[in-house]
């Protein structure tokens, strides 16, 4: 897949503050990239540069091959942007609001009407179409903002905290919509603090801190890189009266007692069946053998803390 979003040494300086510092990454068509980072890390500035609102101080960025500075208007056609705050015109009605943004995207009237209806029905807002946006709840406003971003069927969607103000049901609707969009070939750039959302949706995770990219990769790869090999745990139905089988050093024991064993292994597909056979051979009954789940949160916190320590040392 050719990259739909490309950045090369992308940098943004505000007076003495470097908000984004030499960011280089790519996102392929149909992928979801989750951009994580503490508040003030430079996520919004990055999205604003990729949306052709802010001009990079140095470096470059391209959306579907178009330079964000040279081809700014084309880029703004190609992207949809859900901003951090919904920012609706509260005296307008939903269809009127969407019609305004559709017209600014030069969509034919019939298309924008049909699309607005389709999206409003999808997000269960159709029944509220005659109310003013000022009467909408927080979650409804967030959905409206998302519809606005998706209205012109953009190839790239920038979503800044898409589920932040939503109840669990609405948040799931939005996550499902994001997954559906990926399925239909859209590329999604997701800024979020919701690590569960990032982990469940994203193909790749980028972590930035103080404008610098400190990690980039698939969630599983990041976990492996930062937390080491996956941790496995075997539990028996009753205590073991003899030493655990160590499989000639294939297991890196993490913890053990007479009823459970936790270990790392580089090749679980070989060592786990072998361990089970050996336990069976010595008459131990296995209750469970499972990989201990490790959250993205651990990865994120370690990254941010490590980076903080490094900056502190500097």
């Amino acid at each position, binding site marked *: 897949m050719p990259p739909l979003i490309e950045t090369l040494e992308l940098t943004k300086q505000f007076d003495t503050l470097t908000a984004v510092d030499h960011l280089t990454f790519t996102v392929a068509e149909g992928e979801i990239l989750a951009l994580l980072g503490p508040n003030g890390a430079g996520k919004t500035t990055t999205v604003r540069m990729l949306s052709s*609102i802010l001009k990079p101080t140095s470096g470059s960025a391209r959306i579907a091959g178009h330079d964000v500075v040279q081809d700014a208007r084309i880029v703004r056609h190609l992207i949809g942007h859900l901003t951090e705050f919904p920012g609706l015109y509260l005296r307008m009605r939903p269809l009127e609001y969407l019609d305004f943004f559709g017209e*600014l995207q030069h969509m034919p009237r019939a298309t924008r009407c049909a699309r607005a209806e389709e999206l409003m029905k999808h997000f269960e807002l159709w029944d509220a179409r005659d109310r003013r946006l000022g009467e909408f709840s927080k979650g409804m406003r967030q959905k409206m903002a998302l519809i606005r971003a998706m209205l012109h069927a953009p190839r790239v969607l920038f979503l800044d905290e898409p589920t932040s103000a939503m109840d669990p049901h609405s948040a799931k609707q939005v996550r499902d919509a994001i997954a559906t969009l990926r399925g239909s070939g859209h590329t999604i750039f997701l800024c979020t603090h919701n690590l569960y959302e990032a982990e469940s949706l994203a193909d790749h995770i980028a972590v930035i801190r103080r404008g610098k990219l400190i990690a980039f990769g698939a969630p599983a790869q990041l976990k492996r890189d930062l937390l080491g090999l996956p941790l496995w745990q075997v539990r028996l139905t009753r205590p073991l009266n003899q030493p655990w089988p160590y499989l000639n050093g294939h297991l890196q024991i993490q913890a053990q007692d007479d009823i459970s064993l936790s270990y790392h292994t580089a090749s679980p597909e070989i060592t786990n069946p072998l361990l089970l056979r050996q336990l069976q051979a010595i008459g131990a009954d296995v209750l469970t053998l499972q990989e201990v789940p490790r959250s993205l949160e651990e990865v994120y916190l370690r990254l941010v803390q490590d980076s903080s320590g490094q900056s502190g040392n500097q």
Partner: protein
Amino acid sequence: MLSDALIITRREVRDSLRDWRIVAPILILTLIFPWIMNLSTRLAINFVEQYNATIIPLRLVPFAVMIVGFFPISFSLIIALETFVGEKERSSLEPLLDTPISDASLYLGKLLAAMIPPLFASYLGVAAYLLGLYLSIQYVPEWSVLFQILMTTTMEALVMVSGAVVVSSHTTSVRAANLLASFIIIPMAFLLQGESILLFWGQYDVMWYILALLLVADVLLIRTGIRTFNREEILAREIDELNLGAIVRLFRRFFLGAHFSIARVYRDDVPRLLRENRLPIATTLGAMLIALIGGWVFALWFPLPADLIGSIKIDPELIRQQTAFSGNSILPRLDAGAIFFYNLRSLLGFALLGLFSFGSLACLPMVTTMGLVGFIIGEIRVLGMDGVVFLAAALLPHGVIELPAAILATAFALRAGASIIAPPPGVTAGENLMRALADLVKMILFVVLPLLALAALIETNVTPQILIWLYGR
């Protein structure tokens, strides 16, 4: 470009018309205020006609039309001031900036949206007022005067709106924009007072000049607005609070720079400031030249009778009397201190006025002086004498120092006044004003004051001697 702009305009106008805080006052000013004015006009006419002062109603009605028309357009300022910065505060601006609309379309769309409802209300108000007068006293306005007033009202609305949109797109909060609005309101107040005098005085021809000046101001302001409007700068700056401490710190930063020293001011700052301010200096010189020529042409058109002037003869006793003269509110005593403070007070006073007139009133003393100089040279030429020699004797000895000082003070005040509406890229209107003020103060303290002091000494001690030597025999 225009079709995109009109999309913005339509939405904003619709939005304004849904806001009762805008609609209610506009309706009152459109329907009720003209009715009250109508009543007042009839009462006034009845009153003055008892004394056969028929000219007063004739002059009163155009003035009332101007007032009825102006009140609704004052709302355009409120709408325009919050057009960008208000949307930024409500977070609704970024989605708009994410669309493919160009900066110019966005600017024009907002400009039109801020103008159309108040202007429409203004025309409606004037129509209601005149209709009322026609129905009650069968008054029919002089159509050319009505046209002048309506056009002036339109141009004034455009000046206010285009200035306010620039302010709105270069400030970081609605509060800051409202505070800076005084730089638009005060010149408009001066203008209205001037127009009132002209209308009462019946000098309708002069209104054409005002209209022309407003048109030039409109073109300049819209051009500045389009040139300086930049979506990046609107979003790149975070909303901050205005406070006196921050303003003082900003001023100190611009005034003192990184390392302040007197030597550095003269070595680095003054040459740099002169280079950076070539445009206002050239503008000041241009205005002076035009005034000089204007005064000279005026003298040729309206020569004073030769017997009224006679030949130029300066009596040394006159100089002595002038030196002993204690001065009055217009002219200073002929001593160095008095001349120095008089010149300084004039320049500072007009610099202050310049701040509230986009810089234009800062030029007034120099333009007036040069107009008079041109007139005197012209009159002397008419008398068959050499005006240049007189000018060289009466002005040059001290003028060679005083004029550059006055030109610099005027040019820097002009720039300070214009700074609100023409901030360079990357700078807010407030920052630009502070920078311009710091430069003005630096220039006055370190260049203008010493030059004025030296010029005053020469004007007191050298110039009179030269005049006596040339014309005293």
